[in-house]
């Protein structure tokens, strides 16, 4: 069995986006997702001595994050119980014939299966992104995932537009090949 090592100096660069994507798809609150990721890294640091080396660094951090997410929901639910509003659907004659829209299933609502597939697809994309050189991955994420315009990225990373398109081209080619191999 591979004996994995922890190297916290690289955690933010290697895993912050993966953990954030994992979290945001589960808590749907950007600020909260950031807090949970931050807490995960800090908890990881504190419990480094408990790491046995049986799982990879990322798997170990995800297991900490999962507990953080569960704690977050426990906390919300305990608060929610105190302020619960009960809805009653009365049968009086005035509202007869009204549609109870809240009770109708929304066909555009995400099913659990869709969410699971999206989550797995997100992991597959991040696995492929982690194989790219750092600069390519950074430019690709800024352009494709965050939707920044070319000028902003060029200013932020101090690169020319043609340099950016070369990096995007290489990243897209490598990602498409990787996804072809692992997902499609």
């Amino acid at each position: 069995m591979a004996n994995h090592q922890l190297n916290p100096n690289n955690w933010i660069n290697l895993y912050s986006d993966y953990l954030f994507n994992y979290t945001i798809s589960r808590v749907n609150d950007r600020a909260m997702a950031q807090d949970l990721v931050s807490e995960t890294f800090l908890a990881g640091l504190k419990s480094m001595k408990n790491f046995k080396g049986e799982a990879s660094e990322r798997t170990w951090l995800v297991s900490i994050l999962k507990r953080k997410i569960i704690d977050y929901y426990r906390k919300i639910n305990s608060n929610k119980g105190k302020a619960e509003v009960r809805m009653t659907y009365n049968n009086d004659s005035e509202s007869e014939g009204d549609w109870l829209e809240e009770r109708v299933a929304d066909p555009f609502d995400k099913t659990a299966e869709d969410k699971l597939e999206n989550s797995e697809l997100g992991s597959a994309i991040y696995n492929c992104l982690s194989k790219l050189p750092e600069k390519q991955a950074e430019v690709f994420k800024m352009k494709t995932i965050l939707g920044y315009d070319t000028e902003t990225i060029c200013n932020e990373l101090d690169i020319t537009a043609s340099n950016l398109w070369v990096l995007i081209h290489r990243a897209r080619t490598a990602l498409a090949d990787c996804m072809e191999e692992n997902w499609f």
Partner: protein
Amino acid sequence: MKKSFLFISCEEAKHICDKSQYGEATGWERIKLALRLSWCRVTRAYSSKNNKLTNTIEHAKVDCLKNDERNKIKHQFDEELAKHQ
């Protein structure tokens, strides 16, 4: 009409194809790309793969941290890390 006016190289076609994934190709560039796609199998294969990647990423709704958000997490973490080293 000069040949280069309308006909583009495979590399240029790929570049336009990349730009069009982000809605940044001009109308004229899209015409030149469409013409190339009509007869070049290599460009067609690249374009198809590229479109598939775009659709996949849109479908997955992946998200990532903005630089300032990552820097904030990194700053907090580095302070804590310094205490452990």
